[in-house]
C-alpha cells in the first residue's frame, strides 16, 4: 500500500513499510540523503527535519504517522542555499566534518521561526543536537548573525 507524503512541497508516493521511520524513507526511498542517520533514538539530532514548520527527529517518526503533514528537509530549506542561516553558516565557516550540520541548520531554522532574535538561552534550549567536532561556538555565532543580532559578531 503506497503512502503519500508531502516533502519540500512535492508530493511523493512510497512503498516503504508503514513502520519505517521517516528518516529511512527520505534517505533510501526518496533519495534525500541530506538528512543524516546519527543515533536512531532521537538523541543526536542529525536527522532533524521540519514537520509543519516544527523541528522533529525523523528517526523516531514511523512514516505511517506523517499523514498530511508538510515535511521540509535540508534540501528544501531554501533555493540556492539562500536561507540567512545557510549564508551565515558559510560566512562563519561553521562546519568541520559537517555530518551533524543539516540537523543543526534545521533546528536553528525552526528556532528562528519562533524567536526571530533568539537569546543565548533560547539557543541553548532549542539546539540540543550533538556535534563531535565541537562547532558549537560557531553555530551560536552564526545563528545570532542570521538573526541580525548583536551577538552575531562573537566567535
Amino acid at each position, binding site marked *: 500500500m503506497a503512502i503519500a507524503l508531502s516533502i519540500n512541497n512535492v508530493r511523493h508516493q512510497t512503498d516503504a513499510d508503514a513502520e519505517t521511520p521517516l528518516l529511512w524513507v527520505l534517505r533510501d526511498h526518496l533519495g534525500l540523503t541530506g538528512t543524516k542517520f546519527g543515533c536512531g533514538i532521537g538523541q543526536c539530532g542529525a536527522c532533524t527535519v521540519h514537520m509543519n514548520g516544527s523541528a522533529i527527529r525523523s528517526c523516531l517518526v514511523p512514516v505511517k504517522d506523517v499523514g498530511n503533514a508538510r515535511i521540509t528537509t535540508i534540501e528544501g530549506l531554501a533555493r540556492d542555499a539562500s536561507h540567512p542561516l545557510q549564508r551565515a553558516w558559510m560566512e562563519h565557516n561553521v562546519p568541520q566534518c559537517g555530518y551533524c550540520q*543539516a540537523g543543526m541548520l534545521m533546528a536553528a531554522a525552526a528556532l528562528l521561526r519562533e524567536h526571530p532574535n533568539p537569546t543565548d538561552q533560547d539557543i541553548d534550549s532549542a539546539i540540543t543536537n550533538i556535534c563531535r567536532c565541537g562547532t558549537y561556538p560557531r553555530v551560536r555565532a552564526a545563528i545570532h548573525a542570521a538573526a541580525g543580532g548583536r551577538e552575531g559578531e562573537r566567535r
Partner: protein
Amino acid sequence: MSRTNISRRDFIVATSVLAGGAMGISVLPRLAASQSNGASEITPWLVIAADNTITLRVPGPEAGTGGTTQAAMLIAEELKCDWARVRTEPISYVRNVREGNLYIGATGIWSSFAGGNHAPEIRSTLLQAGASARERLKAAAAARWSVPVEDLEARDSIIRHTPTRRKASYGELAALAATIKLAEEPKPKPESEWTLLRKTNPPRLHVRSVVDGSSVYGMDVRVPGMLYAALVQCPVHGGRLKRFDFAAIQNMPGVRGVAVIDPAEPRIELKKPAYWASTEAQSGIAVVAEHYWQARTALAAMPIEWDLGAGVERRDTQQIYDAIHARLDQPPEDLVKDQGDAPKLIAAAGKGVIEATYRTPLSEHATMEPLNGTALVTKDRVELWHPAAMAMQALVIAQEETGVEPKNIELHPPLIGGSFGRRVGADDVRMVLAVAKKFPGTPVHVIWSREETFRQGRYRDLQAVRFAATLDDEGLPEALTVHIAGHNVITLGIVDSIYVNGCIPNVRFETSSVPMHILTGQFRGPGYNSHCFFIESFIDECAARAGIDPLEYRLRIVRRWADEGWSKCLKEVGGRAGWGQPLPKGHARGIAMGSWATDGEPGKGTIVAAVATVEVKNDGALQVHSLDLAFDSGRILNADAVQAQLQGSMIFGLNMCLNEELNVQDGRIVEDNFDRYSMLRMADVPRSINIHMGALSGHDRYGGTGEVGVGVVAPAVANAIFAATGQRVRTMPFRVDVLPPQQSHG
C-alpha cells in the same frame, strides 16, 4: 619495548590537522568527473576546463580538518588561479598504482592521510604542482603569441602579455599547455611572496555542499543495484558466531540473504602502514536486504547465538581497573627512558617524596557518522566507496581481504563524518569487504547501527600511572619515576615531554601491559590525551608541595628548555585569562601545558598552554566557565582553520574529562548510544573558549593543531578544581568525583 615504541610520526596521519584548511569536494561515486567535456590535465594534480573551472586533486579525504581545502590552497598559491572557480577531487589511488606511484612516490605514504599537509615534503610537492602547471600555461601562451615567456604574467587564471595587451584565460590555453614539456621545472616562490596562504581564510570548499544537503558522506553513497546490509558482531570482542537461524527471517520484506564473517577463513597478510590497532576480521553476521531498514529489522528478528569467548570473564569495569592498578605494584615490564638515577634519589628521600596515581578510562570516538562503507567485489576487481581516513591503509586491507591485485582496487573517497583516529585502521573496510565478497557482482552498503558502532570500537586505551618525584632546593622536580600500565600503552605525551627530555635531570619511565580482550586503537592525540592529564596534574602537585604558584612553577621549569615558545605560551595565556586576579568564592583557575609532534626536541611541533576557569558549587556541581589557550606552532597557514581546530579540540578534551567512560559488563561494552554516553551540547559548552594568537613565534615550521588542544583541557580543569577545593581529581571522568569521597587510588 616494541609495543610501546610507536612513534609520533605514525600518528601524524591519524588525526592531524593542519594549520590550514578547509575542504572541498562534492564526492562523485565515479572517477574522473574532471576529465569530461574536453578538460585538460596539465599535470596529474590538476585539470583545467575550457570554462576555466579548475579541478585540483588533493591527497587524502576530508574528515573535517580542512585538509583538502588547505591542499587546494597550496596548489592554487603557485598556479595563480581564480580561487572562486576552484573545486577539488581526490587523487586517483588506482592510477597511482598503475602509473608507478605517480602521486605517492613524490610525497610519501603519509600524503594519503586526512591531514598532514603541513609536513614540509607534502607542502613542497603541492606548491611544485601549482608552479609546474602555471609555467606550462605560460609556455603555451608564449608559443601561441610568439613572445618571450619572461614577458608574460599569470594572475587570476589569465595569462597577460602587457606589451601587446594580449591575454588568454587558463581555459583557452589548457589544451595546448597539456602538451608542453618544460626543459626544467620551475622553483616555487619564497613564502614572503605568498598571496593566498597565510594571507586569506577562504571558506572551506565543502561547506556549501554541507549547508544545502548535497554533500556525500560514506552513508550517502548510492550505487546502481546496491543492496544494504545490517551488521552485528559478537558483543564480546573475540567471541565467535555459534549458530543463527536465517530461515526465521528469510521471508521478511526485502531480505536477500545473509553473510557470515569468519575470522578463521584464510587471508593473506601484508605489511600495513597503520599497525597499531587490530584490523583482523571479527566474527559477525550481516543481513542483506533491498533497504537498510528492512535489513536492520530482519537482523534484529533473527535468532543468533554467540560463543562469547574468554572476554566474558571480565565481569565489570572495576575488575579491569583493579587489575591495572595491581599491575602498578609489580615490577615494570618495559623500560622506555632512563637518565640519571631517579629510583635512588626517590628511595633516599623518605617523606620528601611526592607520589600519586592517576587513571583514565576507555573512550569511544563517537564520530557522528556511524561506521559504514560500500563495496563491489568480483573475482578480480574491487570497487570501494568508503569513508576511510587513510587511503593507503584501506587499500592494503582491501587486498588482504579479497586477494585482488592493487592495480584492480579502486577507492572512491566520500566525505568523512568524523574520524578522530577511528577510521584510520580500516578494520571497518575489512568488515565491509567481508560482507560484500559474499555477494560478488552486487554493490553492498554495510551499515553499523549506532549501538554496533559503540560496541565495536577501537577505543582509547584505559591506563593508570604511578608517579614519584623529589624536589630540589628550589622546589623544582629533581627526580621522577613514571610507571604506566595499560592494555596497549602508547607513550606519547610523556616520552616526548620536556620533563623527561631534560627539564627533570633524573628520570625513569617504564610501562607494563595488562592484556585485555577489548580492542583499542588510536584516539585524537594518542597517548597524549591521557598522559597530559597525568603529568600536568602531577606537576601541579609538585608546585603545591613546593608552595609555588602553578604558573610561576611552570615558567621556572621551562627555563631549562631551549624553546621560548613554552614561556611565551604560558605568559600569553596567563595574561589573557587574568591569572592571579581575584575571582568570586568557589571559582578558581587552573593551568596546564603540553605539546604535540615535538619528538621531545625544541623548535618542533606545536606547544600549548591552557587556563580553565571553573566554579565548584556547594553541592559539588562543577561548571567550567571559560577556557583559554595560547599556542606556538611556529607559523600558521590559515588562521580561521587553526582557530576552528583548536577550539574544537578543546571541546573534545572537555567532553573526555567531564563525560566519557565506557563500562564493561560480562565482557561487553555497556554504553551503546548517546542516551548512556553523554556528550556536551550547546548549553553545556562554556560560552568563553578563547584561542590566543600572541605566542606564535614565527619560527620556520607549520605545526599541526588538531591534537594538541585535546590534552591540556583535562589537567587545566583538574588543577582548577584543586585550586577551588583543595582536592585532587585523579581519574576521568571528573563529573562524579569532584567532591568527597575522594578516589581510593593515590
